[in-house]
């Protein structure tokens, strides 16, 4: 038979067990399965690779990816190249966190449970809300679930979603809401690339809206008129749902300060690798009164039989394993380990670090933008931004040519906004984080100047 490092059974142990069971071969264990179903058994798959062969294969594949250290990148748009403290890796590689299941048995899961309780506290503090759950898959699904939640709470089935939400989030919302047939109204943006308030006001006239959803800073980098939108939402009896970049809270007030009812967001920025888009985690927090309408797991503090503080999953009657089709969501496994990375990150960064990171991003982004705007042909249409901004290419420089030229210089520019926003031709979304060193900014600027020489001035 087969010996394998993941399979401790030996031929002897297999035989011993077969004897006890009273069958003569391992194949016989499957005799309840109709034979005609067992015809097509052999799998067309690679042969078993030993670890060395796996390492070789992975190296082969790795060589087909770039070495990111060789490039300077200004890609953001929902996934960010950020400083990740090394402590996180060391902790996450501890098998006690890595290979534990969901903490169903609290007495032997206090590590995970307390870490989640602390996570929830941090998310509450970051969002200005009262209650957070233990995590969601990502920011987009968290937002979609927040809308479903808003419909449950308000018993309405329309939502207004700003067109300045991350387009991926908009797509996911559309998919999620197609199930229960909730109407999505997309609120247009104005010439400042923020949600158009006047239009929003009109859209809420009927007061049949469950929620208004905005993103701060919005996908185009700009800060929305949050207080006006809050008024429109609440006047219409809708919940005010705000998606945030958690790093931005180092500079911009948490949504709790301007009347949000539910806050969501993506936690990739908090200590999680980009990893080609996943996994990271989504977070969701809300006001106390909406707690029992939350989807997902929640950890609460309690006491053990000795009277000591102990943590446990709680409010489970919201969840699928108890309430089945009446649950607040189908979510079961969430993104706990990524949320743990987020907790450790926030512990390390601390209140001062968060402010400092936000300031670095803001200052470097604004410096870059102001320098770009000095270069002939390049335009920076807005300055109401945090760390991402729109740059408009010169007329005679196409996005394709621009990208190619930049990549040739080992610079990865931002995404092409025009594919999402037809009204923004030649628009690139530039993201600046603490990983973009000042010299990287100068590199970017001198590349632009070279392109001006070549494509604009000639």
């Amino acid at each position, binding site marked *: 038979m087969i010996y394998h490092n993941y399979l401790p059974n030996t031929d002897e142990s297999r035989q011993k067990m077969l004897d006890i069971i009273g069958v003569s071969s391992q194949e016989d264990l499957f005799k309840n399965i109709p034979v005609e179903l067992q015809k097509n058994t052999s799998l067309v798959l690679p042969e078993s690779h030993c670890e060395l062969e*796996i390492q070789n294969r*992975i190296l082969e594949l790795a060589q087909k990816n770039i070495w990111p250290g060789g490039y300077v990148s200004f890609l953001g748009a929902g996934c960010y190249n950020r400083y990740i403290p090394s402590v996180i890796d060391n902790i996450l590689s501890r098998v006690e966190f890595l290979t534990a*299941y969901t903490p169903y048995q609290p007495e032997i899961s206090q*590590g995970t449970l307390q870490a989640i309780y602390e996570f929830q506290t941090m998310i509450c503090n970051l969002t200005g809300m009262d209650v957070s759950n233990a995590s969601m898959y990502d920011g987009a699904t968290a937002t979609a679930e927040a809308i479903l939640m808003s419909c449950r709470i308000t018993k309405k089935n329309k939502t207004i979603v700003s067109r300045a939400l991350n387009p991926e989030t908009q797509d996911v919302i559309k998919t999620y809401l197609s199930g229960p047939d909730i109407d999505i109204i997309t609120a247009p943006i104005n010439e400042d690339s923020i949600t158009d308030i006047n239009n929003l006001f009109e859209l809420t006239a009927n007061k049949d809206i469950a929620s208004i959803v905005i993103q701060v800073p919005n996908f185009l980098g700009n800060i929305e008129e949050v207080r006006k939108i809050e008024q429109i939402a609440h006047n219409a009896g809708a919940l005010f749902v705000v998606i945030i970049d958690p790093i931005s809270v180092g500079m911009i007030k948490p949504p709790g300060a301007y009347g949000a009812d539910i806050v969501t967001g993506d936690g990739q920025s908090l200590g999680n690798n980009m990893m080609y888009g996943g996994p990271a985690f989504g977070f969701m927090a809300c006001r106390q009164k909406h707690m029992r309408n939350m989807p997902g797991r929640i950890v609460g503090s309690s006491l053990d039989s000795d009277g000591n503080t102990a943590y446990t999953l709680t409010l489970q009657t919201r969840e699928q394993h108890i309430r089945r089709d009446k649950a607040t969501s*189908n979510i079961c496994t969430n993104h706990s380990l990524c949320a743990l990375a987020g907790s450790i990150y926030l512990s390390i960064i601390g209140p001062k670090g968060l402010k400092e990171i936000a300031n670095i991003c803001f200052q470097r982004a604004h410096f870059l933008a102001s320098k770009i705007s000095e270069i002939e042909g390049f335009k920076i249409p807005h300055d109401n931004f945090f760390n991402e901004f729109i740059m408009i290419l010169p007329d005679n420089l196409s996005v394709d040519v621009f990208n190619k030229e930049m990549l040739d210089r080992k610079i990865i520019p931002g995404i092409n906004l025009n594919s999402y926003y037809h009204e923004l031709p030649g628009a690139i979304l530039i993201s600046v984080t603490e990983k973009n060193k000042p010299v990287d900014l100068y590199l970017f600027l001198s590349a632009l100047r070279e392109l001006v020489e070549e494509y604009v001035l000639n």
Partner: protein
Amino acid sequence: MTKLIFEKSEQGRRGCLLPEAGVPEIDPDSAIDSSLLNEEEICLPETSELEIMRHYVELSNKNHCIEKGFYPLGSCTMKYNPKVNESICQLPRFKDLHPYLPVTFVQGTLELMYELQNFFAEITGMDKVSLQPAAGSHGEFTGMLIVKAYFKNKGEERTKVIVPDSAHGTNPASAKMCGYEILEVKSNDKGQVDIEKLEELVDDKVAAIMLTNPNTLGIFEENIQKIAEIMHKAGALLYYDGANLNAIMGIVKPGDMGFDIVHINTHKTFSTPHGGGGPGSGPVAVKDYLSDFLPVPTIDFDGESFFLKYDTPLTIGKVRSFYGNVGVLLRAYTYVLAMGKNGLKQVSMDAVLNANYLKEKLKTKFFLPYEGLCMHEFVLSGKIQKEQGVNTLGIAKRMMDFGIHPPTIYFPLIVPEAMMIEPTETESNEILDNFIEIMEQIAKEIEENPEEVLKSPHNTPVKKIDEVLAAKKPNVAYKKQ
């Protein structure tokens, strides 16, 4: 008791330092509405790096995990999570890739994902795969949206989905998220779907049945072909919850059983670590006639290079950001390579062997509600012990004192005092025999002195926890005094 990290905070202490901006600075209010600027500090811990390490090391030591001992948590397939899977995720060429990089920059990752799609199609006997869903439940949701889109495209209005009474809670919840009404079909005395009852439920408003096979009792649905016939005859689809795929790899394929859609739990069958509650991943595989409805993008190959295929007009759309839990998928990929075609079959054969062995040994002391061969797991009932004064929760707590994680308890709902035991193939015979001894000892303790047993656990970081208090007076975030 470990203080909260907030309680260890001391003003001014730093967990890390940060660089200067290094550029001329402007006043933030010159760009941003000053009333929105956050003057205050967010309440976060202020601690040294050492303190943070100590905190999380201390917390980690309060967890059970696979590397600490046996973890027969039924339905969860707590097999060994190989460490090579972890190392590959540390390579900068994988972990530091932005999802919007030009595809020419990430051909290695795309090739891996493309191959993995094919592996999963082969193992499940399906045709096309989406790697996007983030967990099993998310896969179910995605699959049921595909069902919905399929019938919408056909112009059929179907509003109901059937699930067995033994189904996992996510099945009805996921169908419900897609707007379906749930019909429950009873199990018969063999622990399988009652065919007659099923036939009564099926009509042209039924969109699908969601099954796992082997089912949550660890029993193979022998009438699966009949079930498929009934459903398909009624124009409905069959959805396969892949939570139990570990029982049948290389033995039988869901596609051959008649299923139209399958999801896979990589964090069960394919050895990706559970992380204390995720991230997992729940790829969805479908038959050809459903492939047009898969979420976008899928990974495709044009003969020269790999690309993200968005051009799928009937797609249900996107079910999450980007392309999937790539970090988890890398691990699943290396696992499939590690086992290979024969190894995966041996995985299932050993998983089933270990389970049957335990079942044979344990049924003498604990009530076995359904006799016969089981698959990779089986369900005992603690009803004998309950009569003696200790319910299944009590048994579970006592097991902890022996360094063993209790089985899944009180699920499936159709078995009173259920203990769902899944040893997995990565446990040795010594571990199984040790478990048998412990279970026999606990049975004996209950016979002799049930009150004593009810005081368990003794050797755990905390004692039995008051769950009622937690729910009655919810305290879900720390507030500084």
